C-alpha cells in the first residue's frame, strides 16, 4: 500500500482522476466484452504496453499484483480446458481445442483488467481518487468511508506491530504468537485500534473537519483537452473492439 501511495504521490497526474476512472471502465468493458474464443483480445495489450513506458511503474509491484489474480483465473480456465472439447479455428489456419483458447482469452482479460486498475492507482493518489469518485456523484459518506478505512488500516497495522513487539519482549523464547493467545490479542488489537481511531476522529473534528468539504476539496474539474483525450481513447477502444480485425491484415501491412 505504502509503495503504491508513494509512487502515485511522486508520479505526474497526467489528467483528472475522474477521466482516468472513466477511461479504466471503458477499457475494462471493451476488453471483457470479447467472446471466449475471440483471440483479438490480445490487441488490447497495446494500451498497457504503451502506458508501461510512459508511467514506468516499479516492475515488482506491477507483476506481483498480476500474479495475485492469476491463480483464480487459471483455475476457472482449467475447468474450460477439461469441459470444452470443441475445435476452434484460429488465425493462420490453426485449429485448437476450444477450452485452451477460452482459457487463454480469460487470462488475457484478467491481466488487462488488473493492469488498467493498477495504472489508475499508480498515477492517482488516494485523495484524488476520492475526489474523482465524488465527481461521479458517489455519496460523500461512502467516499469518506473509503478514505478512513485506508487510514485506519494503517492505524491497525501500527498497533499490530506494537503489540507484536510487546509480545516478543514478554515471551522472548517463543517463535510467533501462540495459538491460545490469538483471540485475546485480536480482541485487544480491535479495542486499541478503536480507541486510537476515536481519538484521531475527535482531533479531526476539533480542527474543523467537514466530510463534504474535505472530500470535495480534491474534486478536480476536467479540462476540454482532457475530455477530448478521453473521447479519443474511448473511441479507439470501441473501434478496436467492434472492427472485425483479422490478424492476416496486420501481416499484409
Amino acid at each position, binding site marked *: 500500500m505504502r509503495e503504491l501511495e508513494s509512487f502515485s504521490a511522486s508520479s505526474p497526474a497526467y489528467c483528472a482522476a475522474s477521466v482516468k476512472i472513466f477511461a479504466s471502465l471503458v477499457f475494462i468493458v471493451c476488453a*471483457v466484452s470479447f467472446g471466449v474464443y475471440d483471440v483479438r483480445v490480445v490487441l488490447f495489450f497495446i494500451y498497457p504496453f504503451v502506458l508501461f513506458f510512459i508511467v514506468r511503474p516499479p516492475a515488482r509491484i506491477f507483476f506481483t499484483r498480476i500474479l495475485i489474480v492469476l491463480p483464480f483465473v487459471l483455475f476457472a480456465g482449467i475447468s474450460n480446458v477439461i*469441459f470444452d472439447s470443441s475445435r476452434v479455428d484460429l488465425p493462420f489456419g490453426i485449429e485448437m481445442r476450444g477450452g485452451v483458447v477460452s482459457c487463454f482469452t480469460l487470462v488475457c482479460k484478467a491481466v488487462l*483488467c488488473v493492469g488498467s486498475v493498477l495504472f489508475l492507482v499508480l498515477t492517482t493518489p488516494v485523495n484524488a481518487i476520492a475526489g474523482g469518485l465524488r465527481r461521479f456523484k458517489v455519496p460523500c*459518506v461512502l467516499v469518506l468511508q473509503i478514505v478512513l478505512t485506508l487510514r485506519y488500516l494503517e492505524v491497525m497495522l501500527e498497533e499490530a506491530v506494537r503489540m507484536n513487539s510487546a509480545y516478543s519482549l514478554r515471551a522472548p523464547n517463543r517463535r510467533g504468537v501462540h495459538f491460545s493467545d490469538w483471540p485475546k490479542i485480536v*480482541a485487544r488489537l480491535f479495542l486499541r485500534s478503536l480507541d486510537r481511531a476515536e481519538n484521531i476522529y475527535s482531533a479531526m473534528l476539533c480542527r474543523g473537519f467537514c466530510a463534504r468539504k474535505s472530500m470535495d476539496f480534491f474534486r478536480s474539474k476536467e479540462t476540454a483537452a482532457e475530455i477530448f483525450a478521453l473521447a479519443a481513447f474511448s473511441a479507439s477502444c470501441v473501434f478496436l473492439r467492434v472492427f472485425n480485425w483479422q490478424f492476416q491484415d496486420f501481416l499484409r501491412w
Partner: protein
Amino acid sequence: MADALVSPAVGGAMLATSAVLIGISARNVRKNFDNSKIPLMGVMGAFVFAMQMINFTIPGTGSSGHIAGGVMLAALLGSYPAFLVLSAVLIIQALFFADGGLLAYGCNVFNMGFWSCFIAYPLVFKPIAKDYSSNGRIFAASILAGIVGLQLGAFCVVLETLCSGITELPFKVFAGLMQPIHLAIGAVEGVLTGMLIVFLKSARPELFAGQNAAQSAPLKLVCGYLLLASFAIAGALSLLASENPDGLEWSIFKATGKEELSASGAVYEFLEKAQAKLSVFADYAIASMGDGALSAVFAGLAGVLIVAAAVVLAARILKARHSER
C-alpha cells in the same frame, strides 16, 4: 469475483443494482446515523478488510472463498452503515489489492453485502439474537445468519458466472463446489462474529446501547430490495437465459427422445386449451411483441409485478383474517 469472470451485461446490471442500494444506504445513513460511530465504521472496515485477506482459491470456479463480514458489521452498526462499510472495503480491495475489479464491483457488493446486511441480519440474526442478552442466542444467530448470508451470496456467484458464459463448468458441479465450501466458511464466520459481539458486549457495552433502535432495514424495505433484485434479474439477466432445454426437459429428452411429454384424454385437452387461452406470456414473451429481446424483458417484468401483486394480496387477506380472529 474478478472482472474477467463477468460479462459487461451481467457486470453492468449488478453495478446498477448495487449503485441504487448504495444510494439508498447513503441517504439513510445521512439522515439517521450517529456521527460518533464513524470511527467504529472505519475500524470495522479495516478489521473486515484484514479478515477478507485470508482467502483461498476454490478450484475450477475462478472465485475465492473468504469471510464476508456482512453480518458482523450489521450486528454492530445496523444494515445501512454495514452495507456502506462493506462497499468501501470492496472498492479498496478492487483498486489497491487487485482483488475483485471495477466491473465486477457491483456483483461483489451485491453477493457479500446485500444478502448479509439486508436479508440475513434483519430476517435471521435479529429475531434470534433479540436484545443481545444471551450469549447462546448471539452465537446461534451469528452462525445461522453467517451461513444464510454466505450461501445466498455464493449461489449468486454461481448464477452470475454462468450467466456471463465465461466458464464451461456445469451448473451442478459449480454449485457443488461453491455451496459446501461456503457452508463451512459461513459457520466459521458465524463463530468469529459471535466471539466479537460477546467480547465487545463485555468490554464496550456502550456500543450496544440502543441497539434495538439501530438502523436495520425494516421488513417493507427488505421486500422492496428483493423486488428490485427481481426486476434486475427478470429485466436484464433474462436476456442471457439459455435457449437450451432446462435440466428437467433435458432429462426427459434423454429418457424419451422428446422434450415434453404428451398425454391424451378429455381432462388433459380441456386443461391444455384453458392454458393456451390463459397464457398471456407464453414462452416468456408477449404475443403482440413477437419473440424479440424487448418482449422477453417486458414479459419478465410483468411476471415479477404479477407475482408481487399476488403475494401482497394474499398477505393482506391473511392479515385481515388474522385480525378478525
